[in-house]
């Protein structure tokens, strides 16, 4: 097989726009094949997977809820990837942000603290996420250690740290020994936008982040520097851009956004800190960033699309059950509940919910999503 590759004279805009669509098309083809192998009717399956969630308000809100962390993290990661540095530890920064914000929520619990609590939690989480992301960045610029490996290793550390906090110091005394903090006070909770719904303020914050990133990359010198350092490091050096400083900056921003996403998830849809708060958001966001071609608007669309695949893979009843019953660690049961919609999904769902302590990169949805 001899393929000859030739350089294009210039970037093709058509290809840039079409290639994510090709990727999604290939995904659907792969999924159909997988479904066929599993003995399900692919057309029917794809309908349940992609179309059904779009037909009712609950699922639409749920898509926005799931897309919120994906988009926020994805935007941050895209800055790193544009600068050609590889932060793959967003999952860890997400968890550390969640822990840092929860600290305040736990400390102010029942003290009647005012409305400053939530904003303070958001700031705290962003700062913690940024600091946590700066560890691999500093190791990179100061010692030349591969940021890919260090940032990933810190994911496991963050995961274990969260596990320790909720099993030890912060465990809810009235929580029947479940590894979870007590339910956050209303002032420490991200408010929902529609009364009785699931859509919360985080979705607005995610949209603001998209807008800010668009301005940063398209309209500011810093954004230009980030892109040049990644695309043409030599030119950047001649231009006098400080690439080390840009590495630190992009890592700090992406860490801050991941941390922010972490506390929004905890103080929003989840409502308390517990292990397994993330079904691999930090890792899925890598796919979101690339599927969105590292472009803020593209990332918004890609985030919504991947959120759709999250929802499609899980019946809504099981989601509700999970939220209500706090059974983060024994969820393998829920797939056996007879009310679960989409029974043919049994095997996929089972793997989705089976959480081991060391489940990473996980949420074993059918891999075809990517």
């Amino acid at each position, binding site marked *: 097989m001899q393929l000859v590759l030739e350089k294009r004279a210039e970037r093709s805009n058509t290809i840039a726009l079409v290639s994510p669509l090709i990727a999604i098309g290939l995904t659907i083809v792969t999924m159909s094949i997988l479904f066929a192998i599993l003995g399900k009717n692919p057309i029917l399956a794809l309908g349940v997977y992609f179309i059904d969630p779009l037909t009712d308000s609950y699922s639409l809100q749920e898509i926005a809820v799931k897309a919120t962390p994906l988009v926020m993290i994805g935007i941050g990661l895209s800055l790193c990837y544009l600068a050609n540095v590889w932060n793959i530890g967003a999952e860890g920064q997400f968890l550390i942000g969640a822990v840092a914000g929860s600290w305040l929520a736990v400390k102010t619990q029942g003290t009647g603290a005012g409305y400053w609590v939530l904003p303070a939690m958001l700031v705290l989480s962003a700062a913690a996420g940024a600091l946590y992301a700066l560890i691999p960045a500093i190791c990179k610029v100061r010692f030349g250690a*591969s940021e890919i490996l260090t940032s990933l290793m810190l994911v496991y550390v963050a995961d274990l740290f969260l596990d320790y906090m909720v099993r030890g110091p912060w465990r809810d005394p009235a929580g029947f020994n479940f590894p979870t903090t007590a339910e956050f006070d209303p002032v420490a909770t991200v408010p929902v936008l529609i009364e009785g719904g699931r859509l919360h303020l985080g979705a607005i914050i995610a949209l603001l982040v998209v807008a800010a990133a668009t301005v940063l990359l398209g309209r500011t010198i810093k954004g230009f520097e980030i892109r040049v350092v990644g695309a043409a490091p030599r030119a950047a050096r001649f231009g006098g851009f400080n690439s080390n400083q840009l590495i630190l900056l992009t890592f700090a921003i992406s860490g801050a956004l991941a941390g922010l996403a972490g506390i929004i998830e905890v103080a929003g849809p989840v409502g308390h800190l517990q292990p397994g708060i993330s079904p691999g958001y930090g890792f899925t966001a890598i*796919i979101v960033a690339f599927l969105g071609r590292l472009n803020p608007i593209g990332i918004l669309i890609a985030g919504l699309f991947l959120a759709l695949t999250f929802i499609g893979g899980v019946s809504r009843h099981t989601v509700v059950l999970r939220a209500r019953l706090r059974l983060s660690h024994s969820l393998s049961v829920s797939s056996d509940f007879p009310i679960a919609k989409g029974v043919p999904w049994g095997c996929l769902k*089972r793997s989705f919910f089976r959480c081991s302590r060391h489940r990473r990169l996980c949420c*074993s*949805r059918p891999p075809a999503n*990517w």
Partner: protein
Amino acid sequence: MLAASTPLLLAATGELVTERAGVLNLGVEGMMIVGAACGFGGAWFTGSIIVGALCGIVAGTLLSLIFAMMTLGLAVNQVATGLALTILGVGLSGLIGAGFVGERITPAPHLYIPGLTDIPMVGRILFGEDAFVYLSLALVVAVWLFLYRTQAGLILRAAGDNHISAHALGYPVLRIRMFAVMFGGACAGLAGAYLPLAYTPFFIPGMTAGRGWIALALVVFSSWRPGRLVIGAYLFGAVTILQLHAQGLGLGIPSQFMSALPYLATVVVLVLISRARTGGSTAPAALGTVFVPDR
């Protein structure tokens, strides 16, 4: 301790050859976990550890071929492809392994030589492990011989250090790299299969728990030399076992902190190694760069 080190050593040996050929395959974790799922499946269906190991090897190789097709055939960015391969592998293993969770198999038998194995202290360590442990050590020796004592090994290193020169001399750079990537995939698949076949006789999703990434770090630690790889892998195995023992002793340190030790150790080692090497890199010069042959 040897058993904890073996998957690291196997995966890192494969990755070392891949990187020596100039390809950075970050998909080790993904190939390992699929190797674990397929290896367990093979052993469970047939009852044979050897079939299981072969299934793991084949699965790892097939995944690495996807990587080779993308990065070598289509000149895609190796870092992004490797990451995607890992994510694909983790999802795929969950799907493959969904039916096996909760099942058990008889783990690979441990060697027993009357007399030798009974020697106090060292007997168990030297003569009482399972076959994979000795296989992994033999593999390192073989790789060392290949890289430094054969012409093919020299050509492979040439392709990794300067692909343009190697190409100009008429060596098929892309084909060499493809074989190196496949070898890396086979080793990672075997390393993954080792976990359910010998280390713990059952399969759980995500059971590789970052070992593929630690293997990648070990390659950096070893300065791309097989000999140092053995030292590194056994040091890491020792840390893993140490934290297990420390948890057993009940020192009053939270178990989560002890579990985090291997990961923290990786970060510290990477920093120290990278820092010590400011004088000049020992990495293959063309590592991670895309090569598109001109006609």
